[in-house]
């Protein structure tokens, strides 16, 4: 059967909603906030048509709780928000990490801190996405740079979330959320969709947090005859609270291992003109668009510069960056924050090449000439 394709002109927020539906998301809970509200608006219209559930909750804390509940009941679930709302979600994001509940959290980044710049772009939540909730936890964070890629990475966010039983955060920024672009929507049937692995054990032998080789325990929904316990307290394989240091250590180690040992699958970068680059730019999200433009301008003047674009922000693409040691003599990291990712790049390079930061937090996007101007040579 031929693949059915249709072309649509969508904003990033709309593409995110479409991608989620294509991935099989059938439960959305959220709270209005600029610049993410269109995700909710599209889904409020579409979900009941598909037999799914849309509910506007009383705040972002409740939204996060509701999607965890829905996911435990067996439905793929997500929420979308922006900076202040993302801060409110952090406690329950930690619960999802601890209880290993698949779910997708979309944060359309705007300028902060606090109420900040509701209608203007930023990339200020890179570290909040990694470390926003208390305690050590593994997390997966993706950041698309176009509307089309927003669709793709939303599908991927659900797949990774289901495959690794972990919350996945999708970081858009206001520009990606609101820009209109052409998207080729493929037939959902042709998409690769991963659904959580269900247990093969009978109910009396089921351990919801079994220590498997992959680190990912099979997961069954509530109400399917298994009657298990889920808690945010430190627990053992059976899901019940434990004070055993050995059990607690084993569980937390597995949480990290399941993501770390799959990092080659999870981490994606998109190298652009990096083959012979002596100057490398590391960028993500809408800033990567300016960076790509700057690379083209610089190439016209004969500068050997390339862009290593991060599609996965966490786990961090340290190995991918290190693979250019020796070839790339210096790096530039432009970001709409005060150097949240530049710090990681410096850490990955460990002094082997200089890193120039280009930071902007006034709500103006970083333009191609701004990047072009600081490309050396």
């Amino acid at each position, binding site marked *: 059967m031929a693949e059915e394709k249709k072309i649509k002109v969508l904003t990033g927020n709309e593409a995110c909603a479409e991608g989620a539906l294509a991935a099989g998301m059938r439960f959305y809970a959220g709270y209005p906030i600029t610049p993410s509200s269109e995700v909710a608006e599209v889904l409020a219209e579409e979900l009941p048509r598909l*037999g799914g559930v849309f509910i506007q909750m009383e705040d972002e804390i409740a939204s996060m709780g509701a999607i*965890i509940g829905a996911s435990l009941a067996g439905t793929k679930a997500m929420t979308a928000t922006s900076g202040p709302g993302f801060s409110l979600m952090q406690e329950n994001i930690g619960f999802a990490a601890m209880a290993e509940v698949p779910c997708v959290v979309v944060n359309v980044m705007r300028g902060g801190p606090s109420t900040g710049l509701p209608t203007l772009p930023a990339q200020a939540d890179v570290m909040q996405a990694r470390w926003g909730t208390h305690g050590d936890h593994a997390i997966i964070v993706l950041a698309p740079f176009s509307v089309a890629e927003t669709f793709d990475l939303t599908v991927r966010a659900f797949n990774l979330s289901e495959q690794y039983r972990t919350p996945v955060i999708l970081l858009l920024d206001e520009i990606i959320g609101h820009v209109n672009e052409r998207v080729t929507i493929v037939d959902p049937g042709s998409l690769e969709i991963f659904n959580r692995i269900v247990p093969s054990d009978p109910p009396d032998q089921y351990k919801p947090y079994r220590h498997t080789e992959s680190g990912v325990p099979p997961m069954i929904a509530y109400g399917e005859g298994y009657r298990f316990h889920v808690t945010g307290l430190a627990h053992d394989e059976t899901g019940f609270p434990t004070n055993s240091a050995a059990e607690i250590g084993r569980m937390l180690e597995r949480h990290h291992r399941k993501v770390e040992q799959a990092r080659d699958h999870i981490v994606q970068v998109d190298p652009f003109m990096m083959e012979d680059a002596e100057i490398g730019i590391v960028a993500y999200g809408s800033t990567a668009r300016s960076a790509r433009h700057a690379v083209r301008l610089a190439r016209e003047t004969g500068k050997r510069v390339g862009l290593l674009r991060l599609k996965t922000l966490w786990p961090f693409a340290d190995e991918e960056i290190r693979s250019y040691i020796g070839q790339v003599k210096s790096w530039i990291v432009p970001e709409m924050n005060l150097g949240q990712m530049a710090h990681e790049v410096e850490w990955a390079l460990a002094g082997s090449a200089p890193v120039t930061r280009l930071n902007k937090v006034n709500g103006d996007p970083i333009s191609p000439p701004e990047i072009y101007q600081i490309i050396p040579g």
Partner: protein
Amino acid sequence: MFNYESYLRLDKFPLIWCSGCGDGIVLKSMIRAIDKLGLSKDDVCMVSGIGCSSRLTGYVDFNTLHTTHGRALTFATGIKMAKPRLHVIVVTGDGDATAIGGNHYIHAARRNIDITVILFNNFIYGMTGGQVSPCTPKGKRASTAPYGNFENAFNISGLAQAAGASFVARATVYNAVQLEKLIQRAIERKGFSLVEVLSPCPTAYGRRNREGTPVDMILQQKETTVSVAAAEKMSAEELEGKIITGVLTDVERPECREEYQKLIDSFRKEG
């Protein structure tokens, strides 16, 4: 003899509750109510927040979820909306539901979503050592109200009534027979239903307020409560300091998930 064992995860015993705590009476009343209704254990999903009473979910053989502080109703809302065939019961305390979770509490009642809330009101934060709660009566002492509580207490049931709950009842552990019946009726009633149970905390509240032994505290419930029927015949002065028990609200109102289902079904017909 009623067989509680088949509803309990006995390997998780002993309970963390102190001796003399009223919560065990609520647990047993709840189990009897569920048994009377003949609900399958597989179809009951019990969700709790944080606190002494919220530890209950670890001890009962249902689909159980022990969430974050104050948020049980948000998780429960997600479960009920996603899988409406489950009987969703939330177990929570006065601090959990009306302080940190107050917003979720009134909104779940406003939506009139089919969730039954068993709210253990012990007037105090027991697990953290006796701090003042929004339900600590004025003048009573707590570790963070060492000179007596200077704030007004919430009327938990009144809050749910005002917000639009279908069923609201107040009960005591003193009258466990009534408690069981009220829980049964709460589960039966479609929509948001609340049973506020006064459950004494001798350790963190009683001791500090010289309320006597656990038995004294339970007997005191008999003295301080009046039934809805009796209250109707009493003057405002006579009701001063009294707590009204029994069914406070029982009405049929459109239920949230069913209303949403109508929307889904309208598209099915269209398609």
